[in-house]
């Protein structure tokens, strides 16, 4: 158990993440149909299909570059709110790997923190508004708490934090995004973007299991 991913492994991990999200388009479509406009699934698919292509490029050859390439692909191809926030998450998070060039437990936790900070700023939201932040923030805290136990433990903790956040988002009343209009009618349904956060982290957990 090395606990670190080199540039090539990071690229492979991001490919696995992309494929997983592409495979789960319908889950996201249905979640967004319930409390949004129904495009989150196809939006994420478009973004991650573009990410798969971007990962083949030279710029994606470092750990930082791979994250940034994925973020840029999402930003340009997903569009909508998700394009902005998930694009920002990966692009801002990428900086955490600039120094070491690899992903380990500490830099992974830092990436989530930096991604979260950038998303909060971009979206102008706080926790509790029923957005992807409500999965990302607990995931980030759980990751930080697990630092020292290796990358596999950190991605597992982050995934669990995100899943708890998805669950908690059900009880929230949306106050931003397309679900806002539903008001109290949004209660009982999880936030689609939060589900995406959990799927991304779960794919990372699966990839890093045993790493």
């Amino acid at each position, binding site marked *: 158990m090395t606990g670190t991913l080199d540039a090539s492994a990071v690229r492979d991990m991001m490919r696995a993440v992309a494929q997983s999200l592409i495979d789960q388009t319908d889950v996201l*479509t249905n979640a967004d*149909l319930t409390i*949004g*406009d*129904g*495009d989150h*699934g*196809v*939006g994420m698919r*478009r973004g991650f299909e573009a990410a798969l292509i971007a990962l083949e490029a030279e710029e994606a050859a470092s750990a930082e570059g791979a994250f940034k390439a994925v973020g840029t692909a999402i*930003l*340009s*191809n*997903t*569009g*909508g*709110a*998700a*394009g*902005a*926030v998930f*694009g920002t998450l990966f692009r801002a998070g990428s900086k955490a790997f600039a120094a070491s060039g690899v992903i380990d437990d500490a830099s992974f936790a830092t990436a989530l923190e930096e991604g979260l900070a950038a998303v909060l700023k*971009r*979206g102008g939201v706080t926790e509790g508004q029923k957005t992807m932040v409500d999965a990302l923030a607990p995931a980030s805290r759980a990751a930080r708490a697990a630092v020292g136990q290796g990358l596999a433990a950190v991605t597992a903790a982050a995934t669990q934090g995100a899943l708890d956040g998805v669950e908690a988002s059900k009880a929230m009343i949306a*106050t*931003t*995004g*397309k*679900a*806002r*209009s*539903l*008001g109290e*009618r949004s209660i009982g349904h999880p936030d689609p973007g939060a589900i995406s956060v959990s799927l991304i982290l779960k794919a990372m957990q699966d990839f890093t299991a045993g790493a």
Partner: protein
Amino acid sequence: MANPKKILNDVKRVVPEMIEGLALANDGRVYKLDGKPALIRKDIPDGKVALLIGGGSGHEPLFHGFVGKNMGDGAACGNVFAAPSPDVIAAAAKAVHRGKGVLFLYGNYAGDNMNFDMAVELLEDDGIEVRTVRVCDDVAAAPPERMHDRRGIAGDIYMIKVAGGAASELGTLDEVERVARKAQGWVRSMGVAVSAGSIPETGKLTFELADDEIEVGMGAHGEAGIARQKLKSADAIADELMDKILADLPFKRGDEVALMINNLGATTMMEMLIVNRRIRAILEREGISVHRTDVGTWLTVQEMAGFSVTLMKLDDELKRYLDMPAESLGYSRM
């Protein structure tokens, strides 16, 4: 329920194919940006303050059908119901810029706000000055004290018309922004849906309504409105929409307004004209005079059936820009 029946080729390529067809339909007055889903007027005069509009696709002719003389100078297009990305917006802004700055005019949605704001940051690096006016005319979306939480719906069209006129005539970005903000403050809309639209790529209706139900206050992507109700008469629906709209600004005795009844997709003009009859009776009763009326199809939600009503209060300045001749695929006037 069966998927809506549509005449398409590849559902994953609806937007690029549509934009190709749209550029061609402009008969040479508009071109598509190389490699980006954006449409730009060919004959933007030098030294003109530029007006960039944009938003998700699927609402045709809004936004990208409103590029033309005295309308938008360019439009950045997103995927269906998804804001365009920052790189598209920034590229379109550069293409329309003529040295006097760019006004961004678009509907107030989290996705649009974030993407257009990111484009503003990119353009800052290039020294291009941008101002932003967000349309937030949907009175059903939030109470008046939270205007910034309101969605932009058919008020977009009057806003584009006014801002387009102002941007053709006024010399500075400041002045154009001032006029657009005045219009933004004076426009109010509300809609009703009787059936849902769908996203071509998923083939799924964005919501379900029972055979005898309507959604009052429905948003332009199928966002929930104020209430789900039993289908009622045209007059009763007009009364409810007008109650909310009139009280909101509020519009007052002696005001002069522009009135738009916008088809969300599949509603017949017959229905909208019957509604117009009632709206005019209400306005007459309230002592509000109508300077001009538009009844037609401008902001659609794919095949959604329903309509929205927009009132914009006018003064001489807004009248001047609203009444200017205009030419675009989706809206022209003499």
